[in-house]
Each structure stands twice: as C-alpha cells, then as structure tokens.
C-alpha cells in the first residue's frame, strides 16, 4: 500500500468507479486512484464518484470527474493530462458537493502535431512489456508471459522509464497512455 493510502483515515477513502473505453488508460487511472488512497470499485457498484476518461456514461447520476470530457453539466471538468494530485483533489471536491473548473475556459486548443523524438520511441517489445505493466503484472509474470529472462524484463522496464521520463510503473503507464492518445495518427 502506498504512503498516501496508509495516511488516509477510512472515512476519507472514497469509492471511485473508473469509466473509459481504452483498457490501458482505465488501468492507469485505476492505479492512480488507488495510490491516492481511494477504493476502485466496478462500474455498476456503489460509488461516491465516477472518474471518466472523456465523456461520462449516458444517464450517469453520480458526481463525475471527467478527463477531457466537454459536458458542462458534469461536476468536474479536468484536462485529459491532469496530474494525479489534481485528479485526487477533484474527486474529493465533487464528493463534498463542489464543482471543479479550470481557471482558463479552454485548456485545449488548436495545436501542432507532436511527435516523439527518435531516441525516445518505444520498440514493439517495450510496448508489450508496457501492456503487461498496465495490468499490474510483476516482472516475473511478464518474463513468463513473453518467454524472456527476468534480467531482460528488468532491462526493458529500465529502458521504458528512461524513454518515458517516468520513475514508477504507474507513471510509465500513464505517460505512455497519454503519449499514445496524443500521437496516434489516423490515416
């Protein structure tokens, strides 16, 4: 359990349902919520707050924190790349009946195509390791799944951290998911 989780009193822990279409992104958000000390529940379970990647499920009546959604009737509108502390603060705020908005009206705008520099591009193998990280697998389990040595897995994880500028597995998954969202090309 993370430091934040042990610090929280049980009554400060909220039940959060994570909604999103992209499984990798959903997993990353679930881990983020858990590391902030809350309890991740299933989409149909009783929850204090719904954290939605993009638009909220139709007919949702619980307080919703959306990342990148545009529906102005939702409790909290955060940008898609909001950091964990902002997400945690928004979850607590909407559970307390507040609404959350950013100070500027338009956090996203018409921008340039962003492309990762060559040296930071991931290899197909690293993408496989990353998908396993998103599922919360241990190095041992990853080695078994990909049929490679534990040493090689560690090597790939180190390389992922370096290329993504991440310090933890959760951060690596979150950054890779953000990069994928931003840089996927539809052709």
């Amino acid at each position: 359990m993370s430091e934040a989780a042990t610090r929280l009193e049980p009554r400060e822990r909220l039940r959060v349902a994570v909604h999103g279409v992209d499984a990798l992104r959903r997993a990353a958000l679930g881990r983020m919520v858990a590391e902030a000390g809350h309890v991740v529940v299933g989409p149909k379970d009783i929850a204090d707050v719904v954290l939605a990647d993009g638009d909220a499920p139709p007919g949702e009546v619980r307080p919703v924190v959306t990342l990148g959604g545009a529906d102005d009737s939702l409790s909290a509108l955060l940008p898609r790349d909001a950091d964990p502390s902002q997400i945690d603060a928004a979850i607590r705020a909407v559970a307390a009946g507040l609404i959350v908005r950013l100070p500027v009206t338009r956090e996203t705008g018409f921008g340039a195509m962003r492309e990762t520099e060559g040296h930071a591009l991931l290899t197909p193998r690293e993408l496989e390791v990353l998908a396993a990280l998103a599922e919360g697998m241990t190095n041992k389990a990853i080695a078994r799944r990909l049929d490679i040595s534990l040493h090689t897995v560690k090597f790939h994880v180190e390389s992922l951290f370096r290329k993504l500028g991440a310090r933890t597995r959760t951060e690596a998954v979150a950054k890779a998911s953000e990069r994928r969202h931003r840089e996927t090309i539809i052709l």
Partner: protein
Amino acid sequence: MSDPTDLLVQFSNALVARAAAANNAVAAIRLGHGRHVTGMVWRSGVVVASEQALPRREEFELVAPGGSVVTAKIAGRDSSTNIAILKPAESIAAPTIVAGEAQTGSVALAVGADGTGGASARLGLVNLSGPEWHSSRGGLIDRRIVLDIRLAGREEGGPVFDTAGACLGMSTFGPRGQVIVIPAATIERIVPQLAKDGRIARGWLGVALQAVAVPDALRESADQSSGLMVMSVVENGPAAQAGIVAGDIILSVDGTPAHRFRRIARHFGSDSIGRKADIRLIRGGAVMTVQTTIAERQAA
C-alpha cells in the same frame, strides 16, 4: 484639449480609426444562452470562423455589422486547419481585405464582434512569426503566428490586422489559451475548396498508427531506425484489403520514409485519392512491400 501633435494621441487615434474600419469585417455568431463567437466577413456572402469554436450545428444566427440579425448555414468546415465557413441567408457586404505578412515584433490589432453589431479591439505584438507547421489533425498551416494578446472567448475567430491595415489572418486559441493566428494565406487556400465541396478531401488507408523504434535486429534490413506501427485496421478499408494487419510496422510510402508522419502526410492530400501506393513494412521479422489504393477519408 488633447494635443494633436502628441505621438501617443496620434497613435491612439489611429487605432480608433482602424477599429472602426474593422467593424465591417466582424459578425457575431450566436451560440445560444447569450454567448457568441466572432466570424470574419471574408468575402461578400462568406463568413470565416474558427472551426473548433463552433458547435456541430447546421445553422446559426449572425449579428451582422450594424446589428441586423441574419441566419447563416454552415457551408463547410475543416478541423485540420480550424477553418469553417458560413453562408448568410442575406449577403453581408465585405470590406476589402488585403492579406499581410506577420513579422515578429510588429504591432497587431485583434478585432472581435461585441454581439450587438459593433467591434471590440485588442492590441499587442506578434510574439512569434515562424515557418509552416502541421496541426494535430494533419492540416498544413502556412505560418506559425503567435500573439501576445489575451482574447475573450467571444472574440475568437476575428481578424488580426497589422499597422498598415493588412489582415494577418484569423485569431484562434492554441493550447493553454495561447492566442495564435490562422494565416490569411491558409484561409485563401482553404476557403475556395470548402465553398466548393463543404470539406477538404484527404487520402485514407484506414489505419491507426503509432511511431515506434525498429528493433535492433531489423535495422539493417529495414535501413531505418523508426517506423509507424499499425495499432488497428478499419474493416474493409484500403489497408485491410491490402492485407495489412495490426502489428505491422510501416517503413515507407512510395519511397518516402515513414519515420516522421509530417513527411508522409503530403502523400495523402486530395490528389492522392484513387492512387496506388507501395507500402514497405515489417511483418514477422521480415521486410516486405504491399500495394494499396488510397481511398477518400470520410468526415470525422
């Protein structure tokens, strides 16, 4: 009372005259709930607006210069260049718009519609004027123009002038509220196509791609260090018909290396539709070439 030889008075008076002259170039586009954005009266019967600022609706009410309200239909929109055009039911007389070139450090006047037929004005500098760039939606923007002006949401889409009264382009919001300009050259290029077809036709393969590093073992046979990995394939799309599957790494299109998307983007302009393209790719550790026929991309 004011001294007419005072430079600041002259400067201010000149701005007043410019803002008054610009009034004929702006129309308010009503969004409902008392909100509006600005449209630029580009040609008689053509109002240009910021595509991202307009809800997906067919028809809007415009407040023309002077205050008369007319309905206008969306005649075309292109998210790749952030340009939309509206055709008012009654033609709005357009001022003569002369395209100007932005220079870093020059004074710029951004004009918006006040919602009642008048204009609002903002003054600042061209913070940066740089080379052409590609938007995240793949559109080519002729110049990178950033202003050091703050803009209200209702002023987005209005014209930006230099001190000679030439139009640098249309104001819009970039990331994090930064105010940028869609250059007049881009508007001149896109508006006729939009007026004709309602959209900008683009080539399409039916794949989602992500840049990846080519594994070390394959660098020699691939002869490049990165490519675009196929993340998903649209059923029955051109790529699917050519047998391209998720996991393939595209190395080049008709000989142009695919390690940077902007480099191959120009292979998929409106003239590419119907053309055959040779795609070199890595599949299962081997380099091979497949041929596809580029189709037309459907509106998003």
